[in-house]
């Protein structure tokens, strides 16, 4: 699965959870500051990523996932 595939999958999840247009979900966007994903929605995004990509994202790691790129690269490295 390529970086582009993961980005597309993550964008679909963010759209489903938080109603944000998938095309806004770009690598350099901050979940909180740019996409207005709040802390509880972020947990839902993480849980959906675990289901979709077969990765484990522990609570301790969630706080490091500031941007979409952080999440995509974590999934790429750990799936």
């Amino acid at each position, binding site marked *: 699965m390529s970086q582009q595939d993961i980005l597309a999958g993550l964008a679909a999840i963010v759209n489903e959870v938080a109603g944000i247009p998938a095309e806004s979900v770009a690598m350099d966007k901050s979940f909180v500051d740019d996409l207005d994903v*709040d*802390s*509880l929605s*972020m*947990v*839902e995004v*993480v*849980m959906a990523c675990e289901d979709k990509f077969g990765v484990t994202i522990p*609570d301790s790691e*969630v706080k490091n996932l500031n941007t979409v790129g952080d999440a995509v690269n974590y999934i790429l490295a750990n799936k």
Partner: protein
Amino acid sequence: MTNLNTPQTNSHAGLIGLGIYRPSKVVPNSEIVDAIDSSDEWIRERSGIIERRFASADETAASMGAIAAKNALVDAKLSADQIDVVLVATFSHRYQTPSAAAEVAATIGANNASAFDISAACAGFCYGIGIADALVRAGSAKNVLVIGTEKLSDIIDMTDRGTAFIFADGAGAVVVSKTDKQGISPTVWGADGNAREAIIMQPDSVTAGKEGVPSLLTMQGQAVFRWAVGSMGDVCHQALEASGLTADELKAFVPHQANIRITDAIVKRFNFPQSVVIAKDIETAGNTSAASIPLALHALREAGQVKKGDPFLMVGFGAGLAFASQVALVP
């Protein structure tokens, strides 16, 4: 080998009465926001809460529980001396001992009853239903009062952005009795003490007493959200399967009123049919822990959204991390 007698068992147990108490003081978000540098909109988005009730200075978990219990007795058409056991689920009673249940029993005149508390936090009411069902069917009691009551305004830090706007006060009670048909399904329950720091009173009460600081409720909101959303859908599926009913036979889903976002996420994962009414008492009651399920059920019954005999699914979950779920018929 000597053999001793056992009680004469009963075939079935169910809920036969419901009563509540909501404190009179309504606290809108506007009275909470300054101390946590927040806004009405922020609180509504993150919790669904518009307003909550706070008890007055002279009210306690036990005094509110006693009023709810009396109302449940009226609803059940029983007198207090017919009650065999008083169970109180709470974590905001003022005393480690004696129990809130003993105080409630004395206040309402349940002079023939045994009395004890259940420490299972937000799962406490469903734990109580499971225990009461077992006591009645085992023949250890004919009529059991199960009361969930909390005065959380005493133990929350009003400057904590993670908890100040969530928790509130109130009480609810049911009478569980011998019935002709089974009105309570098998209880699916459990706990995970490894995660007990996710919701915990800090510092512990002994340290608090020695150091002269309050012991207050703390919560790791994201961790609790993840646990509740990730696990409670499965727990509800197990409880529904154990009940022998299918989802389209349910009239209502009455989860612990933790946070509207948790309810919405569980509902989405469970995929309830459109016909099932979802309890959302949290919008005007806040999170009242052990009291939230009977309060929410009462609101649905008052609004005519459920009626006597309707099956509803309930699930309680919280500190400990304790959880319990069952289907019951509306009293």
